[in-house]
């Protein structure tokens, strides 16, 4: 192999400018929106500080080993997911194809979530914030009915942003403002991934570091808010009884798995641009620990703000009751304050019980407000936006918050796109002389056109489906086959020699045990538990229906059969690639050699490929 004179790259493969860029890209890929809006929620509902026990156990026995495996694999074979698995064995090529498919599906809907973030961001420059006031109705005598019955924040999210339809079967129309934002988001993704890691490597310095700055600012601000301490105590008070519930362990395992963005193929792609003599073991441990620490760090400002919101709601509840009592009894203003409210209530209840009963006062309980837990888009776009309105200088906080969410999501998008881009580049879909900019442009354009479906009225229901089915079960299947494939087909002995050659020291016994037995077993258990839990009840969703009797509660509906079929397809298709491709190669082999041959083709080792 002669090196071309002008290029420093020996095999024409691009590489990272420095190690820090690579680590930062992996961290950025792993740290995403889920660290902010899923981990704190899980901590809250699963017994606070006690949740950290199953979480760290899962991290140790599932997260770090799988991460190390993927990074070592990519670094060793120096190819994207499809190429790497084809190199190990053509029969395992399906694993790569499955990874690639999942990356495609996730890229489609993930960027639409970023579209919503961008929409909120560009709406944060107004005074007052558009989600803080209800619009008036036609004859200007009162507020818009839908808004009045729920809240202004809910109205802005469900009506002004999503323009949501009451049922998934009703597609509604395209929301032009979302289409504009979607175009802008895909343009940003194109701008950053235009030349692969050459450009993302520069962009990642901003998108991976900026969220930490903002989280710190929110931390400082959040801790000064009233009610922050209640929120934090509520979050972290351990309740060890919850550990008896197997659901908690399942949630911990799945959270670690999805939080580290395993089995997407993006990590393999990132590692493939490394020099082979690189300590992948240390990298894996670093990335996993930073990811978990970020989750913990992010939950502090989130819960300070949630505590603040609960406290304010509690005070509002008290104030409303006080006003009602004062008006009813014609007492002087400020005679009843929040502090002596309970005294007054008991006094009045004993003297005038009928009057008090007639007022229909709501019972105000701080615990009840703290218990209202939300995760996902509800946390960011409803709960947090409501809390931001209550802070002084809300525009600035809103802008900061949404830029932070956008950077978090964007750095994860880089990993997703890389998982799509690198295998396609290696498969040489476009002629080699064509510039990389063309391939990334084609990917972004096609993704934008397909993602237009998510800007329909029913778009957010579809995104929920993609999130629940395309980005959960297939990943578990693919990861399981990844571990089995490396350990039993590529053979652990050869792999440990490769890792030893790359890191320069012998493979620790810990990795041997986890790769061989613990991780596959854990994955199998998690997968089965996950599937069983999903099968227990028919898949349903909650719809926003203004005509529902229980409005503003969301209406629980069951998916129609054709939607259920799509769910099954999304969940099964990437996983089915594994046996399908193996079968395809088996048939091809039989056809070619005309004799039954179950001998696996010669598997190449990474040292051999790079000597």
């Amino acid at each position, binding site marked *: 192999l002669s090196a071309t004179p002008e290029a420093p790259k020996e095999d024409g493969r691009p590489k990272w400018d420095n190690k820090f860029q690579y680590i930062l890209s992996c961290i950025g890929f792993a740290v995403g929106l889920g660290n902010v809006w899923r981990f704190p929620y899980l901590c809250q509902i699963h017994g606070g500080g006690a949740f950290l026990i199953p979480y760290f156990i899962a991290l140790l026995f599932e997260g770090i080993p799988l991460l190390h495996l993927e990074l070592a694999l990519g670094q060793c074979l120096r190819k994207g997911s499809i190429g790497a698995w084809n190199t190990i064995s053509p029969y395992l090529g399906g694993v790569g194809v499955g990874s690639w498919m999942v990356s495609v599906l996730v890229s489609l809907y993930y960027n639409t979530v970023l579209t919503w973030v961008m*929409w909120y961001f560009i709406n944060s*420059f*107004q005074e007052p914030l558009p989600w803080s006031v209800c619009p008036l109705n036609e004859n200007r*005598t009162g*507020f818009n009915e839908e808004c009045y019955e729920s809240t202004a924040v809910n109205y802005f999210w469900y009506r002004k942003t999503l323009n949501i339809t009451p049922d998934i079967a009703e597609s509604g129309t395209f929301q032009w403002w979302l289409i504009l934002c979607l175009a802008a988001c895909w343009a*940003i993704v194109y701008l950053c991934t235009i*030349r692969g890691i050459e450009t993302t490597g520069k962009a990642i310095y901003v998108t991976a570091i900026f969220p930490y700055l903002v989280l710190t600012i929110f931390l400082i601000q959040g801790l000064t808010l009233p009610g922050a301490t209640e929120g934090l105590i509520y979050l972290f008070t351990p309740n060890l009884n919850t550990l008896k519930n197997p659901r908690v362990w399942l949630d911990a395992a799945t959270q670690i798995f999805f939080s580290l963005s395993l089995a997407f193929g993006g990590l393999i792609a990132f590692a493939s641009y490394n020099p082979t003599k690189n300590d992948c073991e240390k990298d894996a441990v670093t990335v996993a620990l930073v990811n978990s620490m970020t989750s913990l760090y992010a939950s502090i400002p989130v819960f300070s703000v949630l505590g603040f919101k609960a406290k304010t709601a509690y005070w509002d509840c008290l104030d409303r009751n006080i006003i009602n009592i004062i008006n009813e009894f014609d007492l*002087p203003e400020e005679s009843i304050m929040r502090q002596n409210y309970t005294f007054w209530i008991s006094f009045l209840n004993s003297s005038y019980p009928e009057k008090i009963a007639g007022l229909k006062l709501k019972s105000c309980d701080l615990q009840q407000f703290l218990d209202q837990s939300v995760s996902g888009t509800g946390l960011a776009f409803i709960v947090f936006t409501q809390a931001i309105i209550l802070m002084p200088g809300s525009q600035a906080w809103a802008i900061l918050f949404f830029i932070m969410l956008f950077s978090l999501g964007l750095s994860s998008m880089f990993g997703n796109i890389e998982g799509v881009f690198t295998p396609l580049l290696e498969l040489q879909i476009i*002629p080699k002389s064509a510039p990389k900019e063309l391939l990334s442009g084609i990917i972004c354009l096609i993704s934008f056109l397909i993602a237009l479906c998510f800007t329909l009225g029913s778009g957010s229901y579809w995104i929920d489906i993609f999130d629940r089915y395309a980005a959960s079960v297939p990943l578990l299947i693919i990861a399981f086959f990844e571990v089995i494939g490396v350990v039993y087909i590529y053979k652990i002995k050869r792999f440990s020699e490769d890792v030893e050659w790359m890191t320069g020291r012998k493979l620790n016994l810990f990795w041997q045990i986890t790769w061989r037995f613990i991780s596959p077993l854990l994955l199998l258990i998690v997968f089965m538990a996950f599937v069983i839990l999903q099968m227990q009840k028919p898949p349903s969703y909650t719809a926003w229906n203004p005509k529902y009797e229980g409005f503003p509660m969301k209406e629980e509906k069951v998916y129609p059969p054709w939607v259920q079929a799509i769910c099954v397809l999304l969940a099964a298709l990437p996983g089915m690639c594994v046996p399908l491709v193996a079968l395809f190669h088996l048939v091809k082999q039989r056809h070619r050699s005309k004799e039954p041959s179950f001998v696996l083709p010669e598997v190449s080792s990474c040292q051999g490929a790079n000597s």
Partner: protein
Amino acid sequence: DAQNAFKVRISIKTALGDNAYAWDANEEYLFKAMVAFAMRRYSSKSTTQISNVLLCNVTDRVSFWFVVTDSSKNVTTVPGSEVEAAIRMNRNRINNAFLLSDKTLQFLKITSTLSPPVDPPTPVWLIVFGVVLCLIVAGIVFLIVSGIQKHKKKNKEPTERENLEEKVEVTLENGIPCEALDLKAGHINGVFAADDDRFTSL
């Protein structure tokens, strides 16, 4: 307490905080004067006097009932609809006289028309969006152009070196000078693509 009476509820401390004034007989006198003023403006007959406005049941809240009597018609009360319309028309003046607002000076049976929110001609978000999009497009164009330039430079370099076989083969093979190739916007250079097959694969 007839149906032509209206209950008024005033929340001075909520509105003014530390600058709150006390509600006393003088304030009541002002209130009567404002209602009489409103009636006069509405019906444009100058017969309503301050003595026509009667207040009763003043509590510590501060809340009270009032009626407007008609001295020309044998001490009957003015119909509620007239009073309501008069108050509605002059609500702003009445509020300002007491440094209060619609919420802190409540006429319990009279609803107020809410002021429409300020709507700028172009929505603000569209402006911000325009700015963001311009920046993105500028970035993309810059990167594409710099990519093309880098590609052109890479194509020109081999032609300047004398000791490379490829250069000789380029000119020999096609007979097309490299400058003409560059005119194809430097995207596809079929010459180099063909060359890649010469080298053994890695």
